């Protein structure tokens, strides 16, 4: 009995992370109608940011108080999600690519100054009759200005906004973003796994004869709190608009709902929630490059169980997977653990194709 309780708690802890990633996916799905394969990786950036801000300076951190670091990291996550939508998603949903053109050209120009000043031309220009060494700063600056101008023009006049929303490029964008963020994280913080201790890490209490970790309690509790907060949000003004777009985007736009702004808010919320999920997960395990890999798959399964629309269904789905895995591993065999958990999902979907959502949604694919 004690063992069973421990298995259920461990399952709820894992399931809570799956649920939060699933909720983040659903929020973005509701507004942009794209499954975001980079969701967990975007959250991982926030987790690394939290570790960086709160970490021991001797280990590469800044050393700020834990709670301040968490607040800043979650704020960063929301802004990061919004920027991603603003720069990358908008042009693929029929909106202007000017922000992308401005930011890309300035960013590229900024990077170019340093590279051209230090390294000169890239190695594949070895055939070009100039010195292999870096250019003087003023030359590098002039070249970078040219780069800025050409990049801006190229994006503005070549990368045309899509005239019609197409899911496939958006899907590819999220897959590409997933890989790109992995590289960014590795370059910024290295690939060595890190301990990311929260104030409750390693602390336990006894419930009868069962020892429970406070990290388990916090993860489950915060998961529930975020799910409730999101449910409440969907009854707010912006939440209703988001639901309207999810139900019928065309009609919602005709009614004057600003789809771009709704989408931007959804990306901010989704990344915030994914950041919270990854912070909770990595503070009770280990922070590393691969932390997002397992969660994104389970998060998607949770979203499937919620029919990609139902917040409650998604949250319940994530918990079901977590507890199913833990019980399958503990009561039957750990070698069958992933199989049995997925089998549960298949059974649920066979019985209720819409998952735990009240209504199945027809989608054109």
């Amino acid at each position, binding site marked *: 009995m004690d063992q069973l309780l*421990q298995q259920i708690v461990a399952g709820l802890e894992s399931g809570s992370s799956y649920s939060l990633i699933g909720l983040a996916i659903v929020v973005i799905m509701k507004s942009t109608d794209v499954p975001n394969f980079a969701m967990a990786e975007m959250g991982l950036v926030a987790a690394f940011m939290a570790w960086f801000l709160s970490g021991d300076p001797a280990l590469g951190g800044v050393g700020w108080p834990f709670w301040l670091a968490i607040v800043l990291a979650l704020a960063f996550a929301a802004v990061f999600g919004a920027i991603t939508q603003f720069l990358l998603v908008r042009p693929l949903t029929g909106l202007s690519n000017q922000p992308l053109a401005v930011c890309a050209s300035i960013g590229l120009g900024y990077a170019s100054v340093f*590279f051209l000043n230090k390294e000169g031309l890239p190695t594949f220009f070895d055939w070009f009759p100039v010195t292999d060494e870096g250019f003087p700063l003023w030359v590098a600056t002039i070249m970078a200005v040219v*780069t800025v101008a050409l990049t801006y023009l190229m994006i503005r006049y070549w990368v045309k906004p899509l005239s019609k929303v197409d899911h496939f490029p958006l899907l590819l964008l999220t897959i590409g973003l997933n890989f790109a963020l992995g590289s960014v994280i590795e370059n910024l913080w290295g690939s060595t796994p890190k301990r990311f201790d929260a104030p409750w890490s390693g602390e336990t209490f006894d419930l009868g004869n069962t020892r429970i970790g406070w990290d388990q309690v916090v993860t489950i509790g915060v998961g529930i709190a975020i799910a409730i907060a999101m449910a409440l949000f969907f009854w707010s003004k912006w939440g209703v608009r988001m639901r309207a777009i999810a139900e019928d985007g065309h009609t919602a736009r005709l009614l004057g709902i600003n789809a771009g702004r709704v989408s931007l808010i959804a990306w901010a919320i989704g990344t915030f929630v994914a950041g919270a999920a990854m912070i909770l997960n990595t503070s009770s395990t280990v922070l590393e*490059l691969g932390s997002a890999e*397992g969660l994104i798959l389970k998060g998607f399964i949770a979203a499937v169980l919620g029919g990609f629309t139902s917040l409650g269904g998604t949250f319940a789905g994530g918990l079901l997977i977590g507890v199913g895995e833990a019980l399958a591993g503990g009561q039957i065999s750990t070698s069958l653990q992933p199989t049995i958990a997925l089998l549960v999902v298949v059974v649920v979907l066979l019985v209720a194709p819409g998952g735990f959502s009240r209504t199945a949604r027809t989608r054109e694919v």
Partner: protein
Amino acid sequence: MMSKLLKVLALLFAVALVAAACGNDDDDDGGAAPAPEATEAPAPEATEAPAPAEEDMPEEDMAEEDMPEEDMAEEDMPEGCGYATDGDVRGVDKENGVITIGSSQPFTGRAAVAGEGLIAGIIIAVEEVNANGGIDGCTFELVWEDDRFEIEQMVTNVRKMIEQDNVWAFVGTAGSQAIPSTYPDIEAAGTPLWGPVSPADQDIQEVYLTNPTRTEQGRICIDHFAEQGATKVAAIGQDNELGEEAFNAIEMQAPVHGMEIVAKEEVEVLSDAVAPAVLSVIDSGADAVLTALDGTQNGLVLDQFHEAGFDPLVCSDQGSAGAGGQTTVGLAVPEAADGYLGALQGALPDSDMDFVQHWLGMWEAYDGPGAESLAPNFSLQTYSISRAFFELFDRLDGDYSYENFHATAEAMVDDPILIPAMPVLACGPLPGGHGCASGAGISEYDAETMTWTQVRDFLPPAS
């Protein structure tokens, strides 16, 4: 027309500058991972660089018995590099006296913490042998590639090094679960692979294992458990070949000591969800646990055992325990990591053995790729493997044909190579003879001093 030309020019500039912005980060203030393309070992010309200053090396480093007989008199090199080699052999440049060797390492990605040390060890060994004048008139050029611990990349690297770089042999290529994927190419090319790190022995003509396999290390862990009085043993392994080797070890060795196997639990690769396996092992009442997981998972298992107030003996193979370093134990709280056991394929990096001190002197002076590694124990491992390789090379007496390579290597069963920081290497003919090393040691971690101590000598498994 003008507009088209402008567009083409714009494209060219943009592509060039994207590459510039994202490209080579050789500069030392860049990201954490140096660009693999810039990692070729010293070109042959560089091998003529003067030997390291004496004060950089411990005195015994210079002792002749420590080195193969490469720094030897002219009469040992009657006709220069490859004097006894008939015809052309891939990777043997007799004219310039250069032998090209290769290695694929996880320099970036999930296993970078090991890969950085692993490649550094090989580079140190190559630089050392070249600085001492090479062997029988040959110097060595090392070509290596970063595989990011990804199977596809490792296969690509091996193909590239065979077909484009024309390597004569591979040394110390790492990535236990992935190496077998490269065997078909290695067999087809006939290129020897010396000292791959820790895969199971698959009886391939070209492959020589210079370290005890994980199965053997696991068996030795169980021998140690028995000596400590354990009677109920459990295993937690990944759901892949790594875990399979641990389960084989427990099946083979527990009966030898009359121990009861109370649990065999699996954990998904790359998963942090170790709790079900941990809870099952706790429920089984095991007093000793053999784990075959990655470093992160091992750290989590130790933490969760500790949180549950469960305190069995826990032992892992050297790679996953990170024995000699902090890669695994650094992920667990100190109280959980205290007393953790790691099998040893070679000496610990803080050993006072002359050979290790010799390596340590060079490691501390080394500033090439991987110099920032947090796991110098991996550097010592491949340094030792490389030293054994050069000893074998010296025994070829100028005949660098693969026939002679195999004949000489397989004759080691009668004349083993003795590298102080490794088990005795006594390769023999197939089947079974290419598992050249037998026996492993056991080390224990002390959280208070943050050090590993060898607690059991290098011994073969009990039978």
